[in-house]
């Protein structure tokens, strides 16, 4: 007779209690406090009176902040697309690599995690800045070309450094770079779980390798792709470090505004309302996705 381990009440409680307590003490209670702040007013320089006011939300829903939110969503969407375009082939390659090669490729995906995010972002600055690695390389290639063309009597204009840093492109590059592993790993995991005999069957039945990948492997990897999209999009939309360091004057994202409310503006209630607005939208997106997945499952 099969017995569910989860029914063994004592053991289950012993395992479940510590994480539940942790979640309560370090996540739910602090979040609850911040949530309460979002209905409060500044009552002096350090005190917040929770009065149940909706003013903070009214201000957060003004066109100014909705516009910034929309822009953040756009940047996050571009980031997610970039991660998908780069991450999907990488995940496929890793999933179908053999033995040792696969282990090494996985290590390479994880490697960036061994370095602090900030150090990686500063490294990216060193690559992208005007006298950085990217421009120096281009400059070298350009002068080589100019030298070759000079032999043919042509004189191209002198090299002009590309402005790679301090703009929205730099922000998207930085966000793609940071979030790529979060896209690769879930897709890889779903491909890894896939029943390989299905692929073999499609090949036996005359599908080419591309067709097998596109019509068989990809649909089976969809759950991985969906969770990859979600865990790339959500943190990218709430990122503030990357736009702060790599962005220019047009790269303000919603989390930059939130950070300033908690620090410079010393306006915690409004910062809390903006944070929770972002959170409500995230919840809505996750719930929407769950609903869609549920419908699909019901149709089958």
């Amino acid at each position, binding site marked *: 007779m099969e017995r569910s381990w989860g029914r063994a009440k004592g053991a289950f409680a012993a395992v479940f209690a510590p994480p539940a307590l942790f979640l309560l003490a370090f996540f739910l209670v602090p979040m609850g406090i911040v949530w309460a702040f979002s209905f409060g007013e500044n009552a002096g320089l350090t005190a917040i009176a929770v009065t149940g006011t909706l003013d903070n939300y009214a201000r957060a829903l003004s066109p100014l902040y909705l516009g910034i939110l929309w822009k953040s969503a756009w940047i996050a969407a571009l980031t997610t697309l970039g991660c998908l375009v780069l991450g999907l082939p990488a995940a496929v390659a890793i999933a179908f690599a053999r033995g040792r090669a696969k282990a090494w490729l996985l290590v390479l995906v994880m490697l960036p995690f061994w370095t602090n995010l900030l150090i990686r972002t500063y490294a990216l600055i060193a690559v992208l*800045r005007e006298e950085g690695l990217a421009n120096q390389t281009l400059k070298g290639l350009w002068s080589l070309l100019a030298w070759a063309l000079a032999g043919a009597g042509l004189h191209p204009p002198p090299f002009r450094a590309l402005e790679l840093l301090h703009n929205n492109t730099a922000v998207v590059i930085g966000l793609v770079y940071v979030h790529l592993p979060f896209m690769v790993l879930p897709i890889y995991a779903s491909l890894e779980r896939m029943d390989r005999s299905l692929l073999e069957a499609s090949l036996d039945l005359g599908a080419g390798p591309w067709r097998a990948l596109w019509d068989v492997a990809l649909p089976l990897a969809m759950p991985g792709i969906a969770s990859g999209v979600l865990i790339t999009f959500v943190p990218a939309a709430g990122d503030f470090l990357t736009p702060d360091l790599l962005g220019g*004057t047009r790269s*303000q994202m919603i989390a930059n*505004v939130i950070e*300033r409310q908690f620090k410079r*503006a010393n306006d915690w209630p409004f910062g809390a309302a903006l944070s929770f607005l972002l959170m409500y939208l995230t919840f809505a997106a996750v719930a929407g996705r769950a609903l869609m997945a549920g419908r699909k499952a019901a149709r089958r």
Partner: protein
Amino acid sequence: MVRGRLGRRSLLKALGAAAVGISVGGLDGCGPGTGRGRAGGEAPRLNVYNWDTYIGRTTLADFRAATGVDVNMSLFATNDELFAKLRAGNPGFDVIVPSDEFVQRMIAADMLEPLDHARIPNFRNVAPGFQDAGFDPGRRYSMPYTWLATGIGYRKSRVDGVPDSWKWLFDSDRYKDRIALISESADVIRLGAKYLGHPIRGVTPELCRQVEQMLIRQKPNIRVFHDDNGQDLLLQGEVDVVMEYNGDIAQVMRSDPDLDFVIPREGSLLNSDCLAIPKGAPRPGNAHAFINYLLDARAGAEISRTILYPTPNAAARALMPASYRDDPVIFPPQAELARCEYGVYEGARTQQMFEEAMTRIRAA
């Protein structure tokens, strides 16, 4: 990028300097008879919360040798961080180093302990101009530690003459895409008002709106709103004119002679970093002894030698070599300083007005 020195507000800030506690010396050195500086039977320890690279190389060891008190120093990167940390109650700091407007703000929020001037005899070393301050009348809560002037740092070979007007930053496309402004909203808006011929204090909502319009017009010409790392952007050739503090530019000028600094002719904003004792400090006796020690002439000179910021300590400045004493960037000429003002903290509402104006500028 190899740099000998980091500005007090630069890289380490981003690295979360606050998390780093630097402890100098062990507890072994305090035998009997070394308790000269101690008061009220306090343990020979002291917790200081300071900016990064903002103390003399040997200052803490010297203080321990003189008094037997061990200093544990933690670092913050912005006044906002300092304020946020103490907002919910003092976590155990004895001495903090807030800037002038935050001194005022913390006095208003009842976060500072009044100082006992009888225990700080070295206050007489302070230059007369710093013995009183608008943000802390009678210096009841704070002692001057350094001061700073905001101005324009620039690359000599890339500008015409001396860019001695805020116009070049706020209202001109001459240096299109080569301009960096500081991201401190209050500073930008108030200096915009100064450029338009108004005083730094008492910016009205209409004037704020006017400055906002000007900066939105100017925005396509601005490369970046920097986070107090303007000196790095200038040094790396990322921009040619930058709004920055004189001390930060003085530091990078040592590694690149093509850089210089000017206080615009319209005048500018002065800041002063101060020593203060937060409410609830566990060892106020040691704190007073430490503040008094930092205002000592020799100790002050040791600090200035390391950090290269202008000192308000006349006795310490007298002990410094001419290369520091007469550096026009570190100590701008009196005529230029006369056009500058200290900022005043004008309340949460004004601060939020500046902040929202900046959010609109950035979103435009």
